């Protein structure tokens, strides 16, 4: 199915919830795909759309954004902003037919190690099925 | 000067590419910076190429300069010299601008080798992208004849088409049918040629003669062009007429290889004025053009970079209004640079004129002090007259 393709996935994780959730998953020895590279941000609201665009243009096959559940943001409303930015990005990618399905947003709390492991695994499988990003080999960027 | 004959395999571009390929093979350099056609086939872009197979599609002699090569080198080395040895294939004016940028500390020449060629000029960009099918044969024609009204106006009068401060130079003028003349212009160039086993024994006399001849003709042409331009732009009235259609997009500044500032002074807070300022200026004259300070932008930009202006013509290419910016700058640059006997990009060692001075120069700048007007204890005559 995947003919040996190992994707490059970038995850932007909120320091307070998803990142701790990832920690928990690690401590509990849950399975997390090795293709996911995690970048810790202080809040999902800190994820500048440009970070995501840059990740894609540098050849990432998928990008995960993770933040606290609505209402649980450490900074009260960062994740609501993140949600709007996610919608913006998805609309732009969709409009340009740049495979918006390679971008995802999930709410993962600090105690949801299991959920973290599951969504990461699911997303990695989805990307594997999608195959490598067409941006990867482009030299005229 | 001695050099070697570079025989054509199929055509000139192919043989240059073959030369570059052997260079990569024999590790004379690790990557090549060279223009390459873009996928939409109507423009070129600089590529840094390591992979030999990708070199196949490169165009060492592109018909346009989309991005001034100096800007490409600056993007590459502004933050420090390249770790890999890079060979850059560029037009002479691009190499000269790169040298200027290195003096302005916006590019590093370390680990960089330049390959230049006798430049037949390039075509105006906006015309070319509209119809590349027409542009390509016109450019081939110009390469044969060394004279074409379809090239950029500043290219037609350029006399610096020969070897600039490069390391390797390909002479096309005076070469026999089916070959070109490759010679080392620096020790580094010689080293590369030695490593490639290219002899440097052929004489360059024929090339030098032709270059001299064309140079004379071009200088003559430039004098004529500048004279006729001067009649069109001299004086406030005609100058303002020339810049009357300027829409203040600052494209000329953005593409200028020498204008390296991230934020131009003319976009800075110094020009963000309270409304009273604009109103007062308008009231003084009856009306005020907006955006204001158009002439100040052009003259100010001139005063900032004119001594390093290589007259490449990129500014004119980028102007959406077709203002002959490059021609005006070329006229002013020639006079200003003559003042300091400075040719931008001529040598890597020559310092920028604004960075040095000689104590005994420019004595005529001071207005001689001859008359005395001062009187003590009473109001000055001319002052009271003004009352």
């Amino acid at each position, binding site marked *: 199915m995947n003919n040996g393709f190992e994707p490059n996935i970038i995850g932007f994780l909120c320091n307070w919830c998803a990142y701790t959730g990832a920690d928990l998953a690690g401590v509990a020895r849950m399975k997390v795909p090795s293709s996911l590279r995690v970048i810790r941000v202080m809040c999902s609201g800190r994820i500048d*759309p440009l970070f995501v665009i840059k990740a894609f243009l540098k050849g990432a096959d998928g990008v995960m954004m993770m933040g606290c559940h609505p209402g649980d943001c450490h900074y009260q409303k960062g994740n609501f902003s993140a949600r709007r930015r996610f919608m*913006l990005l998805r609309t732009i990618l969709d409009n340009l037919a740049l495979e918006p399905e390679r971008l995802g947003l*999930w709410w993962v709390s600090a105690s949801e190690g299991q959920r973290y492991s599951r969504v990461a695994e699911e997303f990695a499988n989805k990307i594997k099925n999608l195959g490598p990003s067409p941006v990867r080999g482009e030299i005229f960027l | 000067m001695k050099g070697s004959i570079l025989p054509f395999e199929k055509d000139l571009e192919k043989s240059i590419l073959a030369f570059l390929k052997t260079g990569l093979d024999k590790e004379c350099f690790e990557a090549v910076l060279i223009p390459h056609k873009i996928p939409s086939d109507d423009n070129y872009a600089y590529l840094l190429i390591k992979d030999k197979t990708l070199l196949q599609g490169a165009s060492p002699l592109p018909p346009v300069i989309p991005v001034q090569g100096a800007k490409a080198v600056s993007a590459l080395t502004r*933050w420090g010299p390249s770790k*890999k040895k890079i060979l850059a294939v560029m037009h002479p004016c691009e190499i000269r601008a790169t040298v200027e940028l290195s003096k302005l500390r916006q590019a590093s020449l370390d680990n960089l080798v330049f390959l230049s060629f006798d430049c037949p000029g390039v075509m105006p960009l906006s015309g070319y992208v509209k119809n590349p099918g027409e542009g390509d044969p016109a450019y081939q024609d110009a390469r044969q004849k060394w004279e074409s009204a379809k090239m950029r106006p500043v290219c037609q009068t350029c006399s610096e088409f020969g070897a600039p401060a490069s390391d390797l130079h390909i002479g096309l003028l005076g070469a026999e049918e089916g070959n070109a003349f490759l010679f080392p212009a620096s020790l580094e160039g010689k080293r590369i040629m030695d490593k490639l086993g290219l002899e440097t024994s052929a004489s360059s006399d024929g090339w030098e003669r032709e270059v001299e001849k064309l140079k004379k003709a071009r200088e003559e042409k430039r004098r004529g062009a500048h004279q006729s331009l001067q009649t069109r732009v001299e004086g406030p009235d005609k100058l303002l007429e020339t810049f009357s259609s300027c829409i203040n997009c600052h494209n000329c500044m953005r593409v200028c290889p020498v204008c390296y500032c991230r934020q131009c002074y003319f976009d800075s*807070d110094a020009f963000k004025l309270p409304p009273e300022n604009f*109103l007062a200026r308008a009231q003084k004259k009856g009306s005020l053009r907006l*955006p204001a300070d158009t002439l100040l932008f052009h003259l100010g930009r001139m005063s900032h970079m004119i001594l390093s202006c290589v007259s490449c013509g990129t500014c004119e290419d980028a102007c959406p209004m077709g203002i002959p910016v490059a021609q005006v700058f070329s006229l002013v640059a020639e006079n200003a640079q003559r003042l300091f006997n400075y040719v931008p990009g001529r040598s890597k060692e020559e310092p920028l004129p604004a960075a040095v001075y000689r104590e005994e120069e420019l004595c005529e700048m001071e207005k001689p002090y001859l008359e005395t007007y001062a009187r003590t204890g009473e109001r000055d005559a001319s002052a009271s007259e003004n009352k």
Partner: protein
Amino acid sequence: MPQLLKISKSVDEGTKAFLEFLLKEKKVCGVITLRKIHGDQGIGYSLITRPDDLEEALPLFPLMPANGGKILSRLTLRGSPKEPVAAVMKPCEMRAFIELIKRKQGSLDNFVFISQTCPGVYPIEMSSGGDLETLASRYRENIQLGENIPETRSACRTCLHFTPPNADIIVSLIAEKDLDKSCSLFLNSKKGEALADGMAGERREQTLDSPELRLLHNKKKEERKKLFDEMGTEMRGIEGLIRLFGKCIGCHGCSYVCPLCYCDLCFFDSKPNESRPISYQGDLERKGATRIPSGTIFYHLGRLAHMSVSCIGCGMCTDVCPVDIPVSTIFSRVGESVQKIFDYRPGMDVEEVLPFAVYKEEEFQEIGEQ
């Protein structure tokens, strides 16, 4: 229902007479309008304070040498004028200014706006070397027919907001039958009525809306759909993007003339965006070759992320592009869908908050929960 003031002069002369009236009666201290710059050579905005200088004014000229919103922002960035100033702006310029005010780049105080039902403008390159008089007269003929004018900017031919929502005075142009003889000014606000107080002319109550305007709206809508569909087939995936934006020479002229790109120093011109040698080396190792300077696609995608939500579709960016990239079409197409998801109409109301300055807890609830 707004009041209609009919002046029995041609529409250009009538508008000019009105501006002159404003200046002479000291109702405003200055007028910002298009004017001939240096005889017939160029057209540009000008701040006119002396009534005599209105002689050369061309308030309704079909050209946009710079987006007026940007000019007003330059003027009011450091405070608003002490006395009223009248600005003759096209609807998209007004909308741009309102977007800029939301970004705290200007102020509406002490401004009166005179706008028009806008039939569109010609691309700016048509003004250089072209004959301005013939350009204007050809335009006038087309307006009277109420048709979409060929040769105007594609952004204008597909513009759906050609009637200004919040101008104080609106000059009616579209489908006016006798532009040579009469000039119709709609006094659209209390401010506008106060301004016109004392101006000679016939007055009556009338709505701006007309079947002709609605017809034109539909025509433009059709053309918009066609243009966007065509663009949709071109902007497909990374290959499509490279085909569209690959020839970009990085002059960033589109951002410089964009009325919404107000930053002093654009992120894409700033230090953090400059690639370090190690970045180029990484790309070189991975792909065997890389574009220098890199970041062409990143610039355009990034600018889309920054301002597509406020894109008012004025078309300045396409006009200044030296390599003819249809920037404006791409931006307004993406902008339309982005604005739709946030239910945002840029430039309509100064009170409407920017989508990225607010959020609603109950929106997009399905996102993030799967």
